[in-house]
């Protein structure tokens, strides 16, 4: 035994086959050291609320899948809505008309009224439905959350994500069926 390896009986202790009291007295310090190792095991849960959205969007956007033909242009939301939320999207500026078309972007301000929220983000086709890519910032004391981003012209689908788990469509914007009984907001620029 090198001194770096646990005694076979201590390994049985770690396996749960015996208890500390079953060890000979001279092995108990080693047994206690071993059990200390297990107390550092991190069993806290890990939740992945964005996975359904990301999976289904991945299936939708890849044309090689026959599935895509039925779902194309229909993004996907799967979560409870926040009944009290009200939201709007404001176009607050467009690039000068002299800008070359390829570089044209539209500045869009997303606004969500969610006084009780701890954090808010907007997820959509423009950020691959990433919950962390576009957080909104609480503005003033009215419970308004805002984010201003530049988007390419075209059609974008999106939803607000409240506290990382609740997907909230924008009641002030047109919406499309997501194919799963819920609605995605649509922004056409």
């Amino acid at each position, binding site marked *: 035994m090198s001194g*770096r*390896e*646990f005694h*076979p009986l201590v*390994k049985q202790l*770690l*396996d749960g086959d015996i208890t500390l009291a079953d060890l000979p007295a001279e092995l108990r310090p080693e047994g206690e*050291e*071993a059990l200390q*190792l*297990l*107390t*550092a*095991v*991190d*069993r*806290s*849960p*890990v*939740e*992945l*609320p*964005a*996975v*359904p959205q*990301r*999976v*289904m969007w*991945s*299936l939708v956007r890849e044309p090689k*899948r026959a*599935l895509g033909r*039925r*779902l194309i242009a229909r993004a*996907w939301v*799967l979560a409870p809505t926040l009944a009290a939320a009200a939201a709007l999207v404001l176009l607050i500026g467009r690039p000068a008309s002299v800008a070359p078309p390829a570089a044209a972007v539209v500045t869009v301000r997303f606004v969500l009224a969610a006084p009780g929220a701890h954090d808010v983000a907007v997820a959509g086709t423009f950020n691959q439905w990433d919950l962390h890519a576009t957080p909104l910032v609480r503005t003033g004391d009215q419970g308004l959350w805002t984010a201003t981003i530049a988007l390419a012209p075209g059609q974008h689908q999106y939803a607000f994500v409240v506290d990382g788990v609740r997907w909230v469509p924008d009641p002030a914007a047109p919406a499309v069926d997501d*194919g*799963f*009984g819920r609605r995605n907001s649509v922004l056409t620029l």
Partner: protein
Amino acid sequence: MRPGTDAADGDIVRAVLAGDRERYAQLVERYRDRYARYAARMLGSADAAEDAVQDAFVRAFDQLAQCKDPNKFVGWFFLILRNRCFAERRRNRTSAPLEAAEAVAAADRTDGGTETAERRRALQQALLELTPEQREVFVLKHVEGLSYGEIAERLSTSVPSLKMRMHRAYDKLREQLREHT
């Protein structure tokens, strides 16, 4: 509630294969978190776990016709996720695991103080130094709480070989943690 929300896995798989492919969403929603912790501990971060679980669901969709027993979809899905985790760790073997371990410790620092977080971080760091096979058996037994018999059934292997793997893992963890402290 949508029709069939409480349907058995086998019924959903058969419906998807028969053309009602949108129902795959039910399986994703049902199992999105079940192996999230396993993937996070195998890969060292919740972000990596999210990518792995997403990829595994997409691969499972692509290969759904190969799911021989649709009633055991979740066990079949687990093996796809497992392969993804193993491939990821092999691919990133040269990357620094410390950052990933710190990410896990920071994200999960909810029920203890600095000392607990530090011990968790040290153990997660040591876990990432194990082979994927050793780490997996440790995670399944000591994080997920499965018995050797349950692990053997899930991985189609024997209890003695699992114990051998685990006992090597214990020694390596001890060595790693002693070097760390």
